[in-house]
């Protein structure tokens, strides 16, 4: 069953009808960010519009800089963070790609930048709709990556993101992905906690001995070459490993202080306990899947969903445990990875790899669906489940990747 608890719906919380982007802006205000940089691209830019209003109205005091391109947008906050400022940035689609060089350097610099990626298909051809390839492009580079599904999750995850990224054991950048339009622009009732609680949850950003300041005259990122680069990569790797424990700690504290939030930070399990077929996806794709599951359950079919929240670090051990009881797994990617094993999407192959050492490897089917923001329909989901059923019966994986809802 869904593990989101609504116990102790804290009475001090304000209820607001806001979009995912606006919910992020609420958190940024509560987190008292210091420097924020904007550049227009849909759909993420709605968060910057919301921040601009907060600044104009004096609700947030921060340096608000409209940059001349995403490369600068990310470089400006990177440098602001090294002198001790809490920073926020974001982008979508090709904008995120334009910043690529800067995205590469933030993890080894140990800059705990928090970003919103409003997932968007990569041009060409022009498309505003959601695809996850933009955020996924940094998956190997030391960015922590998570996907959110609701405005409430947007608000809560933003606070958790600062807590995790700015933890001295981690100091890595973190990108929160929100499906373009489906979440960035859709409004829902969201509980906004009081600042006093946030202050209990989120300590001040303290860069410590890495602070760039005349009182701490360090040299940051000198030329290292083969003498040291591999050790620096190794340190990044260790930080990412430590992130697992730090994320669990942060969610536990969040639940203690705010009285809500999931017990399992890594993924949402929806009717997955006893499920014979488990579908896996990220982001707002959960909505049509959940509706389809409810219909199938009414007919006695044991289907469930695992909605992945965290992609980096990837919760492979917990996933293996959660999947081992299934008779078949169907991974629905809202992304592509041309030429990859089985020509699958990115998530499917991560899960295949996760299962490799497992004692029980249920048959796995890979689907690609909803690219470019195309709606994922109940029909698409039903089709996937039918194929998974067949695989459950035969006990065999299917080496093909199935594109759903596509003109052939």
């Amino acid at each position: 069953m869904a593990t989101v608890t609504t116990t102790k719906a804290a009475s001090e919380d304000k209820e607001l009808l806001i979009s995912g982007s606006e919910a992020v802006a609420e958190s940024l205000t509560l987190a008292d960010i210091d420097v924020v940089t904007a550049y227009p691209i849909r759909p993420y830019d709605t968060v910057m519009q919301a921040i601009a209003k907060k600044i104009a109205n004096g609700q947030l005091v921060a340096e608000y800089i409209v940059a001349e391109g995403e490369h600068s947008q990310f470089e400006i906050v990177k440098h602001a963070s090294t002198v001790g400022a809490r920073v926020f940035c974001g982008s979508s689609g090709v904008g995120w790609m334009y910043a690529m060089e800067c995205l590469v350097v933030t993890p080894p610099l140990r800059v705990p930048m928090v970003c919103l990626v409003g997932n968007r298909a990569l041009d060409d051809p022009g498309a505003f709709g959601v695809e996850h390839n933009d955020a996924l492009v940094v998956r190997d580079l030391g960015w922590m990556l998570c996907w959110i599904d609701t405005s409430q999750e947007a608000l809560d995850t933003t606070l958790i993101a600062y807590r995790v990224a700015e933890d001295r054991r981690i100091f890595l950048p973190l990108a929160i992905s929100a499906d373009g339009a489906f979440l960035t622009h859709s409004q829902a009732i969201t509980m906004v906690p009081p600042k006093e609680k946030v202050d209990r949850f989120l300590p001040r950003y303290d860069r410590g001995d890495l602070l760039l300041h005349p009182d701490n005259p360090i040299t940051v990122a000198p030329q290292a070459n083969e003498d040291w680069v591999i050790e620096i990569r190794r340190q990044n790797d260790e930080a990412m490993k430590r992130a697992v424990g730090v994320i669990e700690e942060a969610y536990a504290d969040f639940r203690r202080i705010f009285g809500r939030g999931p017990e399992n930070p890594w993924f949402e399990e929806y009717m997955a306990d006893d499920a014979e077929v488990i579908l896996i996806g990220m982001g707002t794709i959960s909505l049509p899947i959940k509706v389809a599951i409810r219909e199938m359950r009414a007919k006695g079919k044991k289907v469930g969903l695992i909605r992945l929240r965290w992609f980096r670090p990837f919760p492979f051990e917990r996933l293996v445990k959660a999947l081992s009881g299934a008779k078949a797994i169907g991974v629905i990617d809202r992304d592509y990875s041309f030429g990859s094993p089985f020509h699958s999407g990115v998530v499917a192959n991560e899960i295949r790899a996760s299962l490799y050492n497992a004692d029980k490897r249920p048959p796995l089917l890979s689907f690609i669906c909803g690219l470019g923001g195309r709606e994922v329909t109940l029909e698409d989901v039903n089709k996937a489940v039918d194929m998974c059923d067949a695989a459950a019966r035969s006990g065999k994986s299917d080496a093909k990747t199935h594109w759903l809802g596509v003109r052939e």
Partner: protein
Amino acid sequence: MAETTFGNATQVLEPFRGIKKVTLEEYFTSGHRTCQGCESALVMKLMVKAAGPRTIVLGSTGCMYVANTTYYTTPWVVPWMHTQLGSSGSAALGTAAGLKALMRKGKMKAEPINVIAFCGDGGGADMGLGAISATLTHKEYNSLILLYDNESYANTDIQLSGMTPYGAHTTFSPPGKVHRLIHKRWKKNVAGLMAAGHPECRYVATVCASYAVEMMNKVRRALTIGGPTFIHSLDPCPKGWDYDPMLSHELGELAIETGIFPLYEVEDGVVKYYGKTKAIVEGRPRKPVRDYLLKQGRFAHFTEEDLAYFQEKVDQQWEQWEIPGVVPFRKLDAAQAALNVK
């Protein structure tokens, strides 16, 4: 958090009145590995000497990073950080904005800290032009962007940039049997571009380390006036220009005396020539450009025709430009004369 009033205070850095008055402390010391005779390394040393200890320096990729700042042998005494090749503008802006946010919100002790971002000609005048331009419009953040111009992408083995002089031999513009000159673009006028295009940037200057005290004083002016500022330094580079390292100082002087590189500052919109450039503006004859060009291997393939073309272009900048050496709009009479010829 409540906003407190927070101004744009800068440090008080009086000009050095002569070489004997220059402070002895060094903030760029041993440890760097630049070529013998590297003028850009001297520029780094003078730049931070002028700025003093309460300074943060950001350096974009290039010789002054790769050859200058190696792990365990950093020459920087002041805090220093690398920035991406095209990011000197963003590095200055982000650092200044971070400091300002923390100080005005009471999260850091308030004090004026100099922020200097340097870039090469490739990083600054080609790749990073947009970011520098943006930074020069943010008048609420104090910073200096210093472009050290060795007239090539030197670190990657001397390739031509938008700042490489006409006709120069670089590894991307080798003279060949069919094409003597591969590089036929005239050098960007980057200081003039910055001064003319950014009306709220209060200070732009050109400098040459052959005139060290004046150079340091321009840095001090740029750091005290407030807001974003820009300095363009012409730096002879023995490797890229192909000359005996002992000639670095002399080539810097010749670049000025031939009128190829004018020394001036633009403060609050007023152009002021200085040093030997001032003398040229006041009528002292310029030395012929061949005196400068033929001392450098990168022009060894030049014919008389090439030398004449180069001379003519430099003459134009003095005789026909609205503001000689600074703004390339033609004077009305020069423009009419050109029309009449047609």
